């Protein structure tokens, strides 16, 4: 079937790409455009590894048709660091040992970013709710929670649980 033209903004860059109607946003970002920080996990919307921000909101790119991204702004993990400097959330994940195998990390960080962008001082409960759609099979979540908690203004080093 004929490809259709998709125009979107990815990490502040305007991109036009011809895609199959049935291609998911995940497939286009990874396979056509090389944003391999977007991970394919379960392919059914359960694990959150494919999370990207669409107009600032976290979505499952595996359950999004690429053509549905027409005209929107997408942020992938590649869009966070700037000038060779990690984004503060990325740095906090490194500093707090919140990364093990790393497969869930891009999605986890993007969900955390969406939370902190509109709620810079979330409660522990709000952090858990915001990250509820991102599964991690290594860390046991404690250090991930610790990393996000450390980004609250005047945070103490330990999350209160």
């Amino acid at each position, binding site marked *: 079937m004929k490809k259709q033209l998709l125009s979107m903004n990815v990490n502040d860059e305007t991109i036009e790409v011809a895609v199959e109607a049935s291609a998911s946003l995940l497939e286009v970002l990874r396979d056509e455009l090389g944003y391999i920080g977007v991970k394919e996990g379960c392919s059914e*919307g359960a694990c959150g590894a494919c999370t990207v921000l669409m107009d600032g909101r976290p979505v499952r790119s595996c359950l999004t048709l690429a053509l549905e991204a027409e005209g929107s702004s997408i942020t992938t993990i590649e869009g966070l660091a700037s000038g060779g400097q990690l984004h503060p959330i990325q740095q906090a994940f490194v500093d707090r040992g919140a990364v093990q195998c790393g497969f869930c990390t891009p999605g986890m960080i993007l969900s955390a970013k969406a939370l902190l962008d509109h709620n810079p001082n979330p409660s522990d409960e709000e952090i858990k709710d915001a990250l509820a759609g991102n599964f991690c099979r290594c860390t046991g979540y404690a250090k991930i929670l610790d990393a996000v908690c450390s980004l609250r203004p005047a945070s103490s080093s330990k999350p209160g649980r």
Partner: protein
Amino acid sequence: MLPNFKYVRPGSVEEAIDHLTSEGARVHAGGTDLLGCLRDNVFGALKVVSINALDDLRGIRQTPDRGVRIGALATITQVENHELINERYKGLAMGASEVASPQLRNQGTIGGNICQKPRCWYYRGEFHCIRKGGNLCYAFGGENQFHCIFGSDKKCCIVHPSDIAPALVAFDARVRVSGHKGDRLVPIEKFYVLPGEDVERETVLEAGEIVTEIILPPIIEGTRSSYRKVRARRSWDFALAGVALALVLKGGKVESGRVVLSGAAPVPWRSHTVEKVIIGQKLDSKTITRAAETAVHNAEPLAKNSYKIPLFKAIIEEELTKIAIG
């Protein structure tokens, strides 16, 4: 990779309906259930009709009679956070907040949520079950721990997966259905189809028809509402058992209202038996205990889901107690 299909994004409801009457066309709103079904090969699609350019179907606003109109494309997040809904239809906001994960709530729409396909693993898996046109429901004699305890009609024992639909039934919402022959407003209770009526469909939607909006009636003074969901996994999951309440309390007594169960039946299950016990009564502990007992009286648990009986009793008792306290 999904099997390929044609993709169209019509600019009007009429155009969308035209597209949807063509062979193998499927409607796309949030897309989260559609893509899952296509990937699992539950059904195919020759044409995907995205209704996301139909801005008229967005938004949540008060109607002239002080009810609320929710556009079919309102996302679950928007329903969850909307001021009017939180203020007057708390049980609906609570239901929305219990749906799936933050990502899916950002994508999923209320129209899509009430039209969800069942999550039964035989239906989603490689079984040509009765709901897909086969002869047999594999869950009756199989792995049925997440299946229904009411309303199977001995044909198919799915549960309806929505957390929002039970709250909408509790509030007596109506669904606007648009198609070639025009619009019709369907009380949401009549929107769903039991296996005994037609085992191959979940809703009354005909080919070429779509949900365009949901209308909540004005709230009656003294209404108290809630939604409670129990799931196997704290982070996110479908309901093992749930209850939506919308009760009108006057002078300490339940004047009217509805009790609707989720995770219980192939449709959002209105518990007329509980309603009968509590309406006209004070919500004291005796009435509440009797209501909880009555709720599961004529339940028909399967081999692996009888745990739902004490679960429903407990949550109905707890939620009625909370409503009584106010």
